[in-house]
């Protein structure tokens, strides 16, 4: 059964009671909340997600999104996320409940999935192989990711790339794509089937919204793939297209910066980064528009297969 098949009232009741168990990367997370925005957010962004049975499926984490104190339900209302009693972030204004859930779930994955190398990178798939996009915040990685999945690529993740330590395969997460500021309107124009949540303004990251992941990507969430290409994208308005190959050692050094759990994994993480760098062709691409970068990515992808 999927979220879309639950009546809103039934979904709200579940969220307030036993919770809703959803797959999240390599974990299953039980979400509880009494905040209406969360019910509507899940319906909008997680419509195609399967609702797991908490009596059958092992619950890895319990996440609760609610007001921090009784007072904060009414006076300048706030929302806080708790995971198994821990509070990873300071409370936020109530209007940011859905972004808080998304940031919270990212935290759950990056803090616990230590049987994987966790990279701050987007990853998409085509033809059974994965393309990883690693970049600093603000480089346009999520927007590019959204554009790619509207031109024939499958979404694995827009934010966290999980590389299994055991075999180097990439694990899909397939959650809503996070968009900031100008990219929100850019992504809206990508196609008629684009679904974007309400925009939250004045967050720590500026204006924030999320795009629903395509149903086909959600359905394929258990298909793990080998990485074939790594791109360090950099967007700047008006920029000319520049693409150059990056050697594996240089790619590794740069990728280390984007490895969230490098310090936890220590030598084993280095080992995984070596395997990853060897397995992929790496490129640095500067661009000013989708018209420039998408064909270039296609060209490089064809060349290496």
């Amino acid at each position, binding site marked *: 059964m999927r979220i879309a098949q639950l009546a809103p009232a039934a979904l709200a009741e579940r969220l307030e009671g036993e919770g809703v168990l959803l797959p999240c990367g390599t974990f299953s997370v039980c979400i509880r909340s009494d905040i209406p925005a969360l019910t509507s957010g899940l319906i909008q962004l997680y419509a195609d997600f399967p609702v797991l049975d908490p009596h059958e499926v092992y619950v890895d984490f319990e996440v609760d999104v609610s007001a921090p104190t009784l007072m904060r339900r009414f006076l300048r209302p706030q929302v806080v996320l708790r995971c198994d009693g821990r509070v990873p972030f300071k409370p936020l204004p109530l209007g940011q409940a859905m972004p808080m859930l998304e940031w919270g779930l990212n935290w759950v994955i990056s803090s616990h999935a230590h049987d994987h190398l966790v990279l701050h990178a987007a990853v998409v798939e085509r033809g059974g192989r994965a393309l990883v996009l690693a970049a600093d915040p603000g480089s346009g990685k999520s927007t590019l990711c959204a554009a790619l999945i509207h031109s024939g690529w499958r979404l694995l993740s827009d934010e966290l790339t999980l590389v299994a*330590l*055991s*075999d*180097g395969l990439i694990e899909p997460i397939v959650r809503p794509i996070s968009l900031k500021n100008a990219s929100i309107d850019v992504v809206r124009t990508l196609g008629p089937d684009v679904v974007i949540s309400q925009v939250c303004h004045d967050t720590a990251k500026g204006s924030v919204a999320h795009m629903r992941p395509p149903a086909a990507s959600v359905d394929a969430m258990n298909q793990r793939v*080998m990485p074939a290409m790594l791109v360090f994208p950099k967007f700047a308005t008006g920029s000319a297209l520049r693409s150059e190959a990056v*050697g*594996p*050692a*240089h790619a*590794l*050094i740069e990728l*280390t910066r984007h490895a969230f759990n*490098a*310090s936890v994994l*220590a*030598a084993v993480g*280095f*080992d*995984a*980064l*070596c*395997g*990853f*760098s*060897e*397995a992929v062709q790496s490129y640095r691409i500067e661009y000013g528009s989708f018209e420039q970068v998408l064909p270039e990515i296609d060209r490089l992808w064809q060349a290496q297969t």
Partner: protein
Amino acid sequence: MSVEALGLCLAPDLHWRVFSDGIAVYVAETCETHLLPAAYGQFMPAAQGPTKAGRVSTVEQTTDAWVAIPTALSDEAVQQLVALGIFSRVDH
């Protein structure tokens, strides 16, 4: 003191991988990753076996692979490499 007199070897608990464009080195003691020019490959013991395609390969470790480094490196380079924890000085 000169490098010849002291002698050098690769530091214990060093991990590295030789690539076409350089050598990535991980120093366990400091948790830092460094990039050495490909020419340093002559100082690293040869890889033990072929890389298996599609698998995460093992990386060479120095715990059993002490190697006396020839004096082709400048003192300055040596100082820096020792400071980073990549080389250790061996007392004979």
